[in-house]
């Protein structure tokens, strides 16, 4: 999968589509405030401005959006630490989640550097929202209409199991089945590019998300990944995520009155603004406002604490020097 950050406008249609497609439970306001929202996909926002003194919102704030879902790492940190083999890698490169094997130790969620895994802390589907703390003494709430709303191709998960983006494996499987059906006796079971549309990709109004077969050099996603702007988030961790991002470019006109020199790399940012000057530690819910002190014109995740993501461009196969980025 490749996500073009230039195209992403942060509309969160992908989040809603993912929730509808995969029966992601609704947890209610109280649980969201406690940080237990179940969305498999989230939109991270990174803000930048020339000056930020933490007392007021600057006038010239710019925002970059980054949709985060399971990166389906080839060298997944989550797979290594699950004690019961509930999360494994399948032959098509997906990091799969076996709900019926998961006992819920939550080590996988701890080890995921992207924090894309969601744990079912309560029986969201079985108990009434707001009454979950009563456990078996609370009211059972499984109205037929809500059940009919769910996607029959996807299970609903009970409490105590971990869930995450599956690259809409049900859609992948139905495409495979359809292709095999069409192939009949012949061997032509390769799915044509564009026949699988995952939910987030389908909903995206700007076609920022591209999904397909990376073993096929002619597929759209392979061409996206061949771009110079392509990088992996937190690539230095060597998790080798299969979801890569195409860096956001800004092309400000240097003759504009409010133009200013933006640092290229983390080292320059650090020199200019000092390390650890960012003091806002309240994470709160995901996707909350998070203001960075420098603005970069070539990347989205320029938060000082996530800086190396743009620093190394995350290319798994080559190392570009920090200066070799698209010029403006």
């Amino acid at each position, binding site marked *: 999968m490749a996500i073009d950050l230039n195209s992403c406008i942060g509309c969160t249609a992908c989040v809603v589509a993912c929730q509808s497609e995969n029966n992601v439970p609704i947890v209610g306001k109280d649980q969201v405030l406690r940080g237990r929202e179940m969305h498999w996909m989230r939109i991270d926002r990174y803000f930048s401005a020339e000056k930020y003194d933490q007392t007021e919102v600057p006038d010239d704030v710019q925002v970059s959006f980054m949709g985060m879902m399971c990166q389906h790492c080839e060298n997944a940190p989550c797979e290594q630490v699950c004690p019961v083999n509930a999360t494994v890698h399948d032959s098509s490169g997906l990091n799969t989640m076996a709900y019926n094997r*998961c006992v819920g*130790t939550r080590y996988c969620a*701890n080890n995921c550097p992207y924090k894309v895994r969601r744990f079912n802390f309560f029986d969201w589907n079985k108990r009434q929202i707001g009454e979950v703390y009563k456990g078996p003494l609370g009211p059972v709430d499984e109205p037929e209409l809500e059940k009919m709303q769910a996607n029959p191709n996807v299970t609903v998960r009970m409490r105590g199991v971990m869930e995450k983006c599956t690259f809409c494996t049900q859609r992948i499987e139905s495409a495979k089945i359809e292709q095999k059906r069409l192939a009949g006796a012949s061997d032509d079971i390769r799915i044509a590019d564009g026949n699988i549309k995952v939910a987030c990709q389908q909903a995206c109004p700007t076609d920022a998300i591209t999904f397909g077969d990376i073993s096929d050099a002619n597929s759209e996603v392979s061409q996206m990944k061949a771009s110079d702007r392509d990088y992996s988030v937190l690539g230095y961790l060597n998790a080798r995520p299969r979801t890569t991002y195409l860096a956001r470019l800004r092309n400000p006109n240097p003759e504009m009155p409010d133009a200013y020199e933006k640092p290229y790399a983390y080292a320059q940012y650090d020199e200019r603004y000092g390390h650890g000057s960012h003091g806002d530690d309240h994470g709160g819910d995901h996707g909350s406002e998070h203001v960075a002190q420098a603005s970069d014109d070539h990347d989205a995740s320029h938060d000082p604490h996530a800086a190396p993501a743009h620093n190394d461009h995350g290319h798994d196969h080559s190392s570009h020097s920090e200066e070799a980025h698209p010029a403006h």
Partner: protein
Amino acid sequence: MATTTQESSLDATQAALLAKVQPAELHEQPLVTNDRDFNWVTDKICRIVETKTPMWWWVCMAIALVTASFTGMGLLWLVSSGVGVWGLANPINWGWAIVNFVFWIGIGHAGTLISAVLCLLKQGWRTSINRAAEAMTIFAVVCAGIFPLFHVGRVWFGWWLFPIPNSNGIWPQFRSPLEWDVFAVSTYGTVSVLFWYMGMIPDLGVLRDRAIQRLTKGAYEGCGFMTKSMDVFRKYFYGVAAMGWRNAGNHWRNYEMAYLVLAGISTPLVLSVHTIVSFDFALAVLPGWHTTIFPPYFVAGAIFSGFGMVLTLMLPLRALYGLHDLITQRHIDNMCKICLGTGSIVGYAYIMEFFIAWYGANPYESFAFINRAFGQYWWAYLMMFSCNVFTPQLFWFKKVRCNTAMVWVMSIFINVGMWFERFVITVTSLANDFMPSSWGYYSPTMVDILTFFGTFGLFSVLFLLFLRFLPIMPIAEVKFVMPAADPHGHHDEEKGGQH
């Protein structure tokens, strides 16, 4: 004659010289003071079991049972409603439960060190504390084991972590540190119980034999609580438990050999078990967790907190049962010195972590450590640092070591500090990790808190039962290290103790 005079004058000169250069006789403090004899030791230890239960025991037991019920209720609510009754959320998926697990397992390591490592190192002073310390280990492992079992989302499938046939037909994932925990903790529990029980057999035999003797003599008038019916119970209870111990020479020979074998097996466990527990953290990618200092750091910390707990238990016991001649100032001194040593290693580890975070120039790592000290959990870090680094350094001073009340208070500080250390490690690295959009803040709920404090109740219940029904010291081992057992002859201190 001239030669004799010469010889005798030579002797005189030599004697005079020797008197000048000979170093002063160092009187090593005996391990059992006040010139006690063997019978006193046996009587002292056995009478704790044989006499009427003191009132303080009933009071403590009542409080302990009530406290332990909190754990029961907390776990019941947890399993019936879901992990959400705890304070966990994204991204802090491990909170008090794992902190408590590491805390209790760490405490257990001191008992095994005293029993096994000090045995192989031939440290005689271990004898009056090793039985109770080993009991502490076993009960600590029981308390610890509750948490990794119950913190999982689906406790009823917890058995899938064991490599036994299951409904999915698949093995556990052996590359996971949690899986290694299963093996480490179960091995540790098994070996500890075996060692403890096997070591107790001669003493259980003594209790059985004393009960039989009293029954044979039959003189029970005016003996207070030592009633005949209790002795009949003791005869059978300790009779079964002593497994036919006959105090024979070949029994003792086998016993000594088995003891050494089990000590040899337990010794590597002191290092390996907490190393594997530390791997739960060290093998993750999170900054602040992913460091190679964790195994020695955790093991040193475990011994540190364990000895703190031994002191917390032993000092009141010493006062309540009048064991001052058996647990002497020398014992307390040695335990304080071990606390000082391991506490210094822990302090060094803190400083080294900071240094490496700076030296390694990894911005995530350096942020993780600055955040620990100055971020949202600065208060926990302060508790940890002050209790663990400053407190044990006071043990350099003999005045402090000799002040029993102060030692006891400090031993509690040590354990509080060590709990906070595990809290800081677990929660700060999870709360503020790679992606700031996922940062959060963890607060325990009442269920978290009560479940943890309930385990102290559970520990106390088990320990009180141990005190009441089992010999709290190994009678024979204490006798081995008494001055009266010295094969070169026993001289009391007025005679200068030369042999």
